């Protein structure tokens, strides 16, 4: 083999090695590209999954021509089809609540003019009558080294549920605060009476004023004080009952008794306080109605209905009647007072509600809510028939099949 042959062989070896190296490099690059492609696909799938899970749409505004690209998720949120949309911002803006549109455009302009950060919650109408809250977050990027806006893109997601929860929470806090104000006033009225009476008598003692301590005056003072203590007890009991009901802890203690006797007892007790106000309380009576109910709780229901009838009854006569049907007993409490507007009939059974404003009458607005809960726990119902100026008739319906004792 001469030098020429050696040179040929060396060249062939070099060419082969070069081809092998090129093939290896090509394959390596191909593998890397495939790997990147797979990673990108995987990453995009993850992003899609995250966007879909978070019910999040994406948007991208072309600042040169004002057109906009949106993900399908965003179009779904807006209630717009791809054909309707056709990259037009005006289509999306037409669904933004009129009161929020100006605010939205101002926030976008501000982001472009300042630091590029955009975040805003606003309302949209995906379809007439269906209002949704959305939160949109975006970022405007600028050409490096200048303040020329380059790209403005971001995400948007549905926050309707959290906004509704927040509104409900605010409403609950407002109701609680209102209740505390009324409860404070109601508790302080008997406390003021007690304090003034006690301090007045202390002063009479210090001034050696015996006319203030006749048997008659002491007796009248004690009756008043007892009445204030009862009022305070009643208010506190109502507050405790509401807490029990709210926590689902209220329970009935059934016993076997004559419902007529209970009604008669309550009417007799009320007749005295009614007469002191010049209110006639009429009860037609009833025959023995034996069954299993909670005496204490039904007594509470009747006391509440009679107390309301006296308070709102314009000092007119109050009628209590009882009617027994096959499986139910109906107790009617009818007054001839101020009455309740039909629109308020269901509201008065709700917590902290009453037919007229807190400035017009005393009470915490708990009595009918508690009474209704008690009657419903017995499997019964309370109905009201009333109109403004025409008095009110409350009907307590109690089932008789509460287990007649065998």
């Amino acid at each position, binding site marked *: 083999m001469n030098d020429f042959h050696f040179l040929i062989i060396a060249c062939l070896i070099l060419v082969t090695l070069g081809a092998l190296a090129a093939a290896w490099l090509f394959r390596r690059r191909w593998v890397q590209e495939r790997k990147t492609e797979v990673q990108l696909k995987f990453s995009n799938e993850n992003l899609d999954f995250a966007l879909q899970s978070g019910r999040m749409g994406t948007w991208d505004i072309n600042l040169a021509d004002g057109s906009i690209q949106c993900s399908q998720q965003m179009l779904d949120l807006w209630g717009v089809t791809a054909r309707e949309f056709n990259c037009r911002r005006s289509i999306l803006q037409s669904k933004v609540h009129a009161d929020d549109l100006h605010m939205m455009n101002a926030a976008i302009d501000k982001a472009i003019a300042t630091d590029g950060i955009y975040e805003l919650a606003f309302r949209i109408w995906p379809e007439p009558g269906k209002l949704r809250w959305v939160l949109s977050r975006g970022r405007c990027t600028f050409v490096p080294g200048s303040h020329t806006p380059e790209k403005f893109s971001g995400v948007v997601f549905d926050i309707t549920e959290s906004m509704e929860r927040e509104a409900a929470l605010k409403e609950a806090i407002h109701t609680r605060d209102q209740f505390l*104000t009324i409860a*404070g*006033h109601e*508790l*302080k*009225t008997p*406390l*003021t*009476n*007690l*304090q*003034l*009476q006690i*301090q*007045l008598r202390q*002063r009479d003692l210090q001034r050696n004023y015996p006319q203030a301590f006749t048997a008659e005056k002491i007796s009248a003072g004690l009756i*008043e004080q007892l009445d204030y203590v009862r009022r305070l007890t009643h208010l506190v009991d109502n507050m405790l009952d509401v807490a029990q009901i709210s926590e689902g802890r209220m329970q009935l203690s059934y016993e076997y008794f004559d419902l007529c006797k209970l009604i008669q007892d309550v009417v007799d007790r009320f007749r005295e306080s009614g007469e002191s106000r010049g209110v006639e309380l009429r009860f037609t009576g009833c025959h023995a109605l034996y069954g299993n109910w909670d005496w204490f709780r039904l007594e509470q229901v009747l006391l509440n209905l009679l107390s309301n009838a006296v308070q709102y009854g314009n000092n007119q006569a109050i009628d209590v009647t009882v009617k027994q049907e096959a499986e139910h007993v109906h107790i009617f409490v009818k007054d001839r007072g101020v009455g309740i507007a039909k629109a308020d009939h269901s509201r008065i059974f709700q917590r902290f509600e009453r037919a007229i404003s*807190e*400035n*017009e*009458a005393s009470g915490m607005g708990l009595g009918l809510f508690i009474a209704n809960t008690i009657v419903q726990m017995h499997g019964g119902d309370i109905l009201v028939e009333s109109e403004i100026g025409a008095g009110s008739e409350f009907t307590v319906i109690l089932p008789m099949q509460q287990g007649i004792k065998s």
Partner: protein
Amino acid sequence: MNKTKGLILIVEDDASICAYMEEIFGGDGFQVVSAEHGQAALDLLHSMQTLPALIFLDLMMPVMDGQRFLQEIQKNPAHERFKTLPVVVVTASHMPVKGEVVAVIRKPPDLNRLVELAEKYAGG
């Protein structure tokens, strides 16, 4: 009874609180008149030739509450005559009072504090 002491107006919807306050101030020689709400107090003031030296005012009342009564006498030109009458608010509320008052007393009020204010403004 000391007849030189001034006239006090009590505006309070709870009849028995009103009666106790009348007994307290009456027993100390003040002349006392009362009204069950803001509107009744305005009507009463318009009918009076000699205005009270001091008003004790409840806030939560029917028809016209105490806050509205204060606004009426201090802002409404129709009640200009009553604009400078000293007012002591006696209330269960802890909300701030809007308007010019000489004192705010929380319920239940201390009898001695009530008398002290009555002496200061209507003591004669």
